[in-house]
């Protein structure tokens, strides 16, 4: 193991650079409530389901943490202050959805009709978001989605669903650009992805894009959620000897895939995987990855991950919409959400207004991180793309 033998290029938070000048874009900090009015403090109940058990439990927890962090931060500054003097104190109400779509639907119905929550955020993962969206639309409610990135969900003509994540179609397209910029001689690519809504929508965009760039897709395979043995795929990849490998899915599978690629000494020069690598524990797989301190840790004093910042950002978007609307009237908030164009620590947020794709995220872009060995010999994530946000140049395997 001399130098950087293997390396994972990975997706992560957008605009961590923006977090350096953090705070200035936090809507709560900039509002000025008219002091003359009498303040009325009201609870703002925010409902959602979290996967405390089942397949999505790790990443769902991050998202819940992110939402909770936002609630704590807002509470610390005294709540969300509206122009009419009302102060809203956010409170969360959530249930365990067991990562199952039918539980999600039953629980969102309960949140809306029994608990009478004021606002809804989404569960984590594209499949569950879809299920929740059906219910919120059936009940004519608004929902800001944090954990759903797949494109198709947002192309159904929803009225009250707003997407914070960048649509899946964007996720790996940038990786292909980066790769070709680093090494224009790359010709053969293997695409191996998880077969779930999210990863499939990523690949549905990335595969034709790769071909349009003149790349030869030598392996195109999908693996089931929960796969732990990637050797069949790796044997196929090795036989096809591609220059680059892109794909992945969520945390567990991505980590294992990277580890096994390393164990088998796959000779690809470039590997880009979805979601898994920004997780701090990704480095536990050893030399297959490489180490971390990112400013985000210092700032939020919690382990960063794409999902928790997604949860936090969903809260901020709601807060901004409430402040802009100046009331909790759903119609006004909807109008405010339609108009939103925010730059958060998380990246830019703006929604599509087209009837068919209403609420789809149109502004948010992805950044790519790479685990690199620092001068102290430890592994750290560095943002390597897009170039104006980069903290270090990307390194290719020699």
């Amino acid at each position, binding site marked *: 193991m001399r130098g950087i033998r293997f390396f994972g290029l990975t997706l992560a938070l957008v605009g961590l650079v923006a977090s350096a000048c953090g705070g200035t874009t936090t809507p709560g900090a900039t509002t000025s409530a008219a002091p003359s009015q009498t303040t009325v403090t009201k609870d703002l109940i925010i409902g959602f389901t979290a996967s405390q*058990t089942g*397949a999505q*439990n790790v990443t769902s927890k991050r998202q819940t943490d992110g939402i909770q962090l936002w609630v704590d931060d807002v509470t610390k500054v005294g709540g969300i202050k509206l122009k009419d003097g009302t102060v809203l104190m956010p409170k969360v109400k959530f249930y365990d959805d067991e990562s199952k779509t039918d539980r999600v639907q039953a629980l969102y119905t309960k949140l809306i009709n029994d608990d009478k929550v004021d606002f809804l955020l989404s569960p984590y993962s594209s499949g569950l978001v879809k299920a929740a969206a059906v219910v919120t639309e059936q009940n004519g409610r608004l929902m800001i989605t944090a954990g759903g990135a797949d494109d198709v969900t947002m192309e159904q003509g929803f009225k009250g669903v707003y997407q914070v994540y960048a649509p899946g179609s964007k996720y790996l397209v940038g990786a292909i650009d980066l790769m070709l910029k680093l090494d224009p001689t790359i010709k053969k690519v293997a695409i191996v992805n998880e077969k779930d809504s999210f990863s499939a929508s990523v690949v549905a965009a990335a595969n034709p894009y790769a071909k349009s760039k003149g790349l030869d897709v030598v392996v195109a395979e999908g693996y089931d959620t*929960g796969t732990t043995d990637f*050797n069949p795929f790796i044997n*196929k990849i*090795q036989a096809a000897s591609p220059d680059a490998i892109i794909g992945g899915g969520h945390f567990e599978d991505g980590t294992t895939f990277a580890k096994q690629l390393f164990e*088998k000494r796959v000779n690809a020069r470039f590997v880009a995987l979805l979601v898994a690598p920004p997780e701090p524990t990704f480095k*536990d797989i050893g030399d297959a990855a490489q180490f971390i301190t990112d400013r985000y840790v210092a700032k939020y004093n919690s382990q960063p991950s794409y999902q928790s910042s997604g949860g936090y950002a969903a809260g901020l978007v709601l807060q901004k919409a409430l402040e802009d609307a100046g009331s909790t009237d759903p119609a006004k908030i909807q109008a405010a959400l339609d108009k939103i164009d925010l730059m958060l620590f998380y990246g830019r947020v703006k929604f599509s207004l087209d009837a068919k794709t209403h609420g789809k995220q149109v502004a948010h872009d992805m950044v790519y991180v790479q685990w690199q060995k620092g001068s102290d010999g430890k592994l750290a994530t560095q943002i390597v793309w897009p170039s104006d946000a980069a903290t270090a140049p990307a390194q290719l395997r020699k």
Partner: protein
Amino acid sequence: MSLEALLPSAIDGLMLGFVYGLAALGLTLIFGVMKVINLSHGPIIALGMFAVFILFSSFGVNPYLGVVAAALVGLLLGIAIYFVAVDRVIDATELTTLLATFSVNLMIIGVATVIFTTSPRSIDIDLGALRAGNVTILGTHGVAVAVAVLVAAALYGFLFRTRTGKSIRAVANNRAAAELMGIDSRRMLALAFGIGTALAMTSGALLATLFSFTILSGGTYELKSFVIVVLGGLGNPTGALVGGLVIGFLEGVLTVFLPVAWVPVVEYVIFVAVLLLRPAGLLGARA
């Protein structure tokens, strides 16, 4: 399709087949002796994984010592499960024993999910690897095969050479007759259930040294064990071992010719076909 992948895939598959075979051996032994399909097989495999994981990560115990510990825990756990859930309904219909063992499944998964959550875990062992061309044989996989072979050999030695082993086989063949011969059949049934459980935990423990896992991972291997057991003949230990190798090999080789995701379809179609055309399995039930 590329034939270059054939050799490494076949080797990978075959090696895994040994561990699959070991898991299936546990299932088939219990069925062979007492006609019970053990639906807690999957969670027990997962417990084997976690036994090694906890010993390794909390107490720094060598994972292979952990495998031995898992086997011993499995033996005791299996005997306990037998007396709690199976003994009372041993002569009842299939449905009753299926549900009784399924209730154990629910309890294990329920309690273990509270303790371990469903987060993925892995044990990092690097034993190096043999590399030749496209073929990479990881040390961990090699050791897993060796352990599986040793355990299977030990089981055969026990069943065919020792008095207790022979008594278990006698109970399997004809419980009433065995009792007339003065064999305490209840003890033998409990012991057989314990050994079956120990085998399942051992295979889980070995799998933990190869792949990452969650408390729910056992389910996959449980279904695979069903396929293998049926292929080799329900209740036939040799069949389970051979079936394991066949399924492992097929899994490896098929991936070269099919998209990997289609392999389970083929597996289950074979499974149903064998049940319909040769319900006794390829090697015949209960050798």
